[in-house]
């Protein structure tokens, strides 16, 4: 805490009264801006703490452990009662978009809403960056005899149903790019559920249309066997 040096010029000291008062003025003036700066800095710090305190290293680590309870120790996903998706190697932009979508209920999921609701933007960035770095083996589990058919659909699309090749946006190795999510190594049940349920889960706020609309015609154009095949193919991709 900054305290102004108390110069009681009336008290007899080394300086005479006039010099003392001048000194007090100068000292006061010099200290005032410093106090002001410190006050501002502290105030900002306090305000920042409410928004970004969650981004301290400790807080991020604690939050990561919390995510990992469901998403797996290295973000590889988990087949629980629900298929919980792989986050490892995921595009940070995509993760952040989804967290915002959960919070704004554009993407409806009661559990993830509560998760996302308390995350500051800085925390979201930190988590997304951390998960991006993980690289465990893919979950696997897709039906092996469907993998070849799935690869064909992934690489060539289905022209007669107006389904473009997935590779054209998600990349030839399904690693994604920017907002386009990585699909490689994703849980097959999760991929299946998302593609079959697309319009019921994404873009749920008509007042705030989002980029999820891009997948709608594709999700609709694919039949369930085709979705199963693609999901199987993706589940084994590294």
């Amino acid at each position, binding site marked *: 805490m900054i305290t102004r040096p108390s110069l009681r010029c009336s008290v007899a000291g080394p300086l005479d009264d006039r010099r003392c008062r001048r000194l007090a003025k100068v000292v006061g003036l010099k200290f005032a801006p410093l106090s002001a700066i410190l006050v501002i800095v502290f105030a900002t710090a306090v305000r920042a703490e409410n928004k970004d305190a969650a981004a301290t290293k400790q807080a991020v680590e*604690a939050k990561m452990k919390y995510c990992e309870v*469901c998403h797996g120790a290295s973000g590889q996903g988990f087949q629980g*009662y629900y298929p*919980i998706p792989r986050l490892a190697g995921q595009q940070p932009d995509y993760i952040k978009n989804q967290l915002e979508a959960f919070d704004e209920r554009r993407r409806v999921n*009661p559990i993830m809403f*509560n998760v996302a609701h308390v995350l500051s933007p800085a925390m979201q960035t930190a988590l997304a960056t951390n998960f991006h770095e993980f690289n465990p083996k893919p979950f696997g589990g897709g039906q092996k005899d469907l993998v070849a058919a799935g690869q064909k659909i992934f690489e060539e699309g289905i022209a007669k149903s107006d389904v473009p090749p997935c590779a054209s946006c998600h990349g030839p190795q399904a690693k994604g790019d920017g907002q386009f999510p990585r699909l490689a190594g994703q849980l097959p049940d999760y991929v299946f559920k998302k593609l079959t349920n697309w319009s019921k889960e994404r873009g749920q706020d008509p007042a705030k249309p989002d980029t999820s609309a891009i997948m709608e015609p594709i999700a609709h154009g694919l039949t369930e066997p085709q979705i199963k095949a693609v999901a199987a193919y993706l589940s084994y991709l590294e």
Partner: protein
Amino acid sequence: MKLNSYRRCRPGGDHSKVNEESIDPSFRRARTGTLIKRPGRRVLQVAGLRLALQLAVLTILFFAAGRADAAVVAKSAVEAKLAYCQDCHGLTGQGYRGFFPIPRLAGQQVEYLENQLRAFVEGRRPNPIMSNVAHVLSPSMITALAEKFRDFNPGPLGGAPKDLIAKGQKIFQEGVPDANVAACAACHGPKALGYEQIPRLAGQLYPYLIKELTNWSKERGQNPAKPDTSFIMAPVAHSLTRPQVEAVAAYLSDLK
């Protein structure tokens, strides 16, 4: 023939003259002195075959019986063992509030029960009573028992303070995001029925749930050389406060 002519055949007798007597090779002299006809070659062949056959059949049956135990457990053995489990866990596996809270097994996930019984045996989950129970169970018996308990469906034992239930439901469905507690429903399912290795929690005993959650790291995963899936619950158990544990336990103990 006098017996003492065969002194050589008695203990301490003189064996130097054993083959002195010559008789027809198709006969032999018994110890008592009687002449016995040796069996003919064909008889020996048949006898040998029959013996071989009997030995073979017995060997096959013996080994088959041993292997069959691994594949099929006798119905009566399962019934008997089930009655033994029911002594403590309740007639329909609903659990029992004895000196120890004995958990509900009714409707439990088969894979979870199998895992826990194995954990008891391997000391990863220390429990003197249950390790003795589990120690003598063959894998097929374990599966048979687990399937029996899965099929029971009694109402929950209940008994928890009712005013905690609403708070417990919130924690179950939403977690405690500020305390980094994941929503239980995310893994255990919206009705706490569990899934494969993830246990059913619906209808579990209130004091048992409290005990497990507050004691998690002292009771589970106790063999550092053999880490098991129990570690997944450690952060959750640590992050929940005691009042939160009691609330969730109250909610779950009331679920059908």
